[in-house]
């Protein structure tokens, strides 16, 4: 290899970390409000993140409509006491406006069978390519292939971030506000589009003092062909599941059917309840669902195929950085949007997979962009005067260099605690305590190894590993403090819901993890 590429330092009003839909909306909104904006993504804006690889439903309901009342009522009911009407209302109303804006920008929505424009579905690759174009138009400076490693702090305020490009160039962006939109954490399960979603932003935020919430609602897996990665659960609404001998399996939702039966042998699905119109809708509307099956020579509407559950963590789960109604975190100068933020107020105790999460990405992105640019405007004179030397690192150990083998074995250790259905689809006190104790040891061993390592090439993977370790510990530490079953937090030892009203848990800390009851 050639010499290390040279590093660079940039200054901006607002720095956005992560360029999926939430980060893109954030950056566009902040720039349109007059802020200078840098957006850094660990991949490439346009193909990075869970949305770019997939299609996503989005909630589009008109203010005052019956559909809006229905959707809000249904979300409240499904949220099992933890979703709030006011948050859902603000979210769907914001998205309703922004989906129209997206059409003005050039997204060609289809018309339904009655000839009306239908805005309830976004094709990921197309949507993200359009948002990339809008980012350029808005004057946002894009740093592709530039993972962030840590936030910069000054007097307890977040004033930028540092990272390393994939080519190895160290970068620093000094800013008056930072928005974390790095997505959730799916622990490299290879569920479609989630490989880069390793909780990096959650770790950076927690190091800066931010709290997280909803982390216990994380028993979230997607159904996929056993050998493939596409975890679009939509088609299984029309599926019949069966075992090796062809016996039909049912009882509970589709995830419960698969989870309950996988320990006893292969589980098969066939999409035999889809009418010809639905089949055509799936083929024409969701080509990426059928792509792997087509390539495997499987006609899923007529042939059964073996399925498995792939862990989706906090991507389709609930938890993330706790935010207020402006998407501000509890760390001054730090905001969060999209799957990096907790979605507890909009989805409650259940998965926001598909529609709610993509709607939240738009709404929270807009709110974070507006609030961060306003915050930057208020703090500008002081912020600009701040010399770089004053900025201390959020955590001086955080850059973490480590050799590849140590990362591989640490990641395997994390996955063996977080993927097994008997540990994470359902849980009990014994499995949680066992996982927590092993993860705590793994964390300490990792910190020790990091401190004594001199290698620099793998600091990117080392940082991802640390973020996954931290996320796994937050998941189980929160799960331990909720002795009940609610939504996608399923406790074998407490099968029922606690009597109302449900408690909200927040969690903070990296070295020492603390769970507290919140409002």
């Amino acid at each position, binding site marked *: 290899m050639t010499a290390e590429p040279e590093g660079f330092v940039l200054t901006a009003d607002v720095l956005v970390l992560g360029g999926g839909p939430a980060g893109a909306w954030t950056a566009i909104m902040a720039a349109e409000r007059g802020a200078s904006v840098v957006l850094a993504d*660990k*991949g*490439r804006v*346009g*193909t990075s*993140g869970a949305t*770019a*690889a997939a299609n996503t*439903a989005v*909630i589009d309901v008109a203010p005052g409509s019956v*559909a809006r009342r*229905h*959707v809000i009522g*249904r979300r409240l009911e*499904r949220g099992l006491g933890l979703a709030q009407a006011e948050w859902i209302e603000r979210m769907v109303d914001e998205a309703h406006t922004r989906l129209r804006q997206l059409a003005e920008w050039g*997204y*060609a*929505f*289809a*018309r*339904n069978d009655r000839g009306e424009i*239908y805005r*309830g*579905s976004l*094709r990921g*690759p*197309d949507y993200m*390519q*359009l948002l990339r174009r809008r980012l350029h138009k808005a004057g946002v400076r894009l740093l*592709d*292939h530039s993972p962030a490693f840590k936030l910069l702090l000054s007097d307890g305020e977040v004033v930028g971030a540092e990272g390393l490009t994939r080519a190895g160039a160290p970068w620093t962006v000094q800013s008056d506000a930072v928005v974390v939109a790095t997505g959730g954490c799916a622990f490299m399960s*290879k569920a*479609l*589009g*989630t*490989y*880069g979603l390793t909780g990096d932003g959650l770790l950076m935020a927690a190091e800066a003092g931010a709290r997280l919430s909803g982390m216990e609602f994380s028993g979230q897996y997607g159904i996929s*062909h056993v*050998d*493939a*990665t596409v975890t679009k659960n939509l088609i299984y*609404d029309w599926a019949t599941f069966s075992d090796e001998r062809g016996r039909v399996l049912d009882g509970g939702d589709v995830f419960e059917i698969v989870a309950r039966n996988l320990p006893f042998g292969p589980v098969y699905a066939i999409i035999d309840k889809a009418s010809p*119109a*639905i089949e*055509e*809708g*799936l*083929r*024409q*509307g*969701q*080509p*990426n669902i059928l*792509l*792997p099956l087509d*390539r*495997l020579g499987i006609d899923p509407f007529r042939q059964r195929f073996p399925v498995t559950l792939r862990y989706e963590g906090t991507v389709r789960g609930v938890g993330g950085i706790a935010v207020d109604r402006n998407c501000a975190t509890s760390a001054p100068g730090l905001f969060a949007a999209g799957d990096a933020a907790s979605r507890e107020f909009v989805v409650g105790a259940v998965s926001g997979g*598909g*529609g709610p999460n993509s*709607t939240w990405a738009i709404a929270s992105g807009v709110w974070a962009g507006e609030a961060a640019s306003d915050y930057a405007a208020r703090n500008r004179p002081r912020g600009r005067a701040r010399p770089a030397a004053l900025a201390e690192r959020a955590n001086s150990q955080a850059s973490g260099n480590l050799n590849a083998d140590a990362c591989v074995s640490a990641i395997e250790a994390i996955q063996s605690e977080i993927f097994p259905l008997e540990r994470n689809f359902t849980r009990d006190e014994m499995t949680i305590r066992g996982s927590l104790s092993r993860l705590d040891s793994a964390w300490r061993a990792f910190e020790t190894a990091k401190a004594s390592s001199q290698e620099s090439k793998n600091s990117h993977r080392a940082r991802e590993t640390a973020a996954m370790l931290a996320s796994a510990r937050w998941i189980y530490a929160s799960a331990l403090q909720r002795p009940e079953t609610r939504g996608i937090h399923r406790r074998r030892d407490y099968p029922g819901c606690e009597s109302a009203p449900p408690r909200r848990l927040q969690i903070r800390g990296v070295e020492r993890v603390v769970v507290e009851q919140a409002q």
Partner: protein
Amino acid sequence: MIELVSTDRCIKCDACVDACPDNVFDSVPGEVPVIARIEDCQTCFLCELYCPADALYVSPLKEERERVDEATLIARGLLGSYRRALGWRGIKAAGTERDLSHRLPEPDGTPREK
């Protein structure tokens, strides 16, 4: 996982190196990009989608290597098939107006009403 970068078809534009969200390829000046870190491939098909020369093939298999033969892939019409299914014009997004997802259930999972 990514299985094929066709040396016959590749125009050495490095679009796949840039499009890959997970840094799987390495660019080689004046040469066809190399698949350098296949273990990091998440089988998202996006490099294939962004290849203007239909030179790439992503196998649907997540872990196992699929032995592919370029002539067979061409005969089966698989090179560039994802982009054609979406209706893209080259590497420019297009075709969303033919999206039939409105026939599928509501975003919250309930059956479409009316």
